[in-house]
Each structure stands twice: as C-alpha cells, then as structure tokens.
C-alpha cells in the first residue's frame, strides 16, 4: 500500500512537470495561469497522499487551505489585467 501511495505521488509529480513545461512554452499569459491551476489541483492531491503516507492528519488542513487559495490567484490575475487594460 505504501508503494502505491509513493508511486501515485510520483505520477502527480510527473503531471506537475508537464504543467511546468506549459509555463515555459507559453505562449499567452492565460496558458500560464492554466498551469498554475494545474499546480493547485495536483498539489492538493499530493498533500492528500502525503498525509496518509506520513501519517500526518494536519496535512489535510494544508490541502484545504491550498484549495481555497487556488481561486484567489486566478481572480487576482483577471482583476489586475482588467485595470491594466482600462
């Protein structure tokens, strides 16, 4: 069971790596924001796996906080773009 959790965390890591490639390639700023969204969701998944793996229930709270803050980044991004445009 431990091996499975480790393997799944590695799979999520690979997913994050692919997202970072998209950040590198661009081309627009919206694509890069999409990659940050991917990092948010994959980060939550990885924290859940780690909370079981390391037997640390507090990591669930960290995951909850990360989930709540993920929306703020996109909202700030669009708000900033809008004021920049006008």
């Amino acid at each position, binding site marked *: *069971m431990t091996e*499975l*959790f480790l393997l*799944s965390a590695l*799979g*999520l890591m*690979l*997913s*994050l790596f*692919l*997202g970072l*490639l*998209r950040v590198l390639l661009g081309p*627009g700023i*919206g*694509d890069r*924001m*999409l*990659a940050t*969204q*991917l990092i*948010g*969701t*994959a980060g*939550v*998944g990885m924290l*859940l*796996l780690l909370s*079981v793996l390391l037997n640390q*229930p507090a990591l*669930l709270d960290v*995951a*909850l906080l990360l*989930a*709540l803050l*993920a*929306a703020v*980044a*996109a*909202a700030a*991004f*669009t708000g900033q*773009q*809008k004021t920049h*445009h006008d």
Partner: protein
Amino acid sequence: MINILSSILILAGVFFYLAGSIGLLRLPDLYSRLHALTKADNLGLGLLIAGVALHSQDLLIMLKLLLIWLAVLAASATSAHLIARQARRQETGS
C-alpha cells in the same frame, strides 16, 4: 478488498491527472486546453479523494476530504471561467 478498491480508485485518479496534463501540453489553443485541464483534473482529484477516504475509514477525515473536494470544484470552476472570459475579452479587444 477495501485496499484493492482504494488502490484502483487512486490509480484511476492519477491516470486522469496525467491525461489532463498531456492535454494541457498537446492541445492547440487556450480554450481546448482549458477544457482538457479543468475537467480531467477535477475528476482525477475526485477519484483520488474517494480512494484516500476509503483507505482512511474515519468519518471525520472523510468529511474533511469531501469539503476539500467541494472547495477545489468551486475554485477551479471559477478560475476556469475567469481565465476564459479574460482570453475572450483580449481576443475581441473590448
């Protein structure tokens, strides 16, 4: 039995995560990337959470996991909508 079921759920979740990331990398424009990433990632996280909840077998932890999933659903739906609207606005130039 429960271990096997939760392993299958977790592996399926990781598969959907990888599918979403490959979609983000390979698809041609922003809207299709948005479509691939948002749906596949949320499904992957849902399956992963179901697997972890089955594994934990603790009601409080299950409820917290459900709360995390709902928060992620709301957050990613909102941010996908905002990003798409922003891209659309830039495209039409208004």
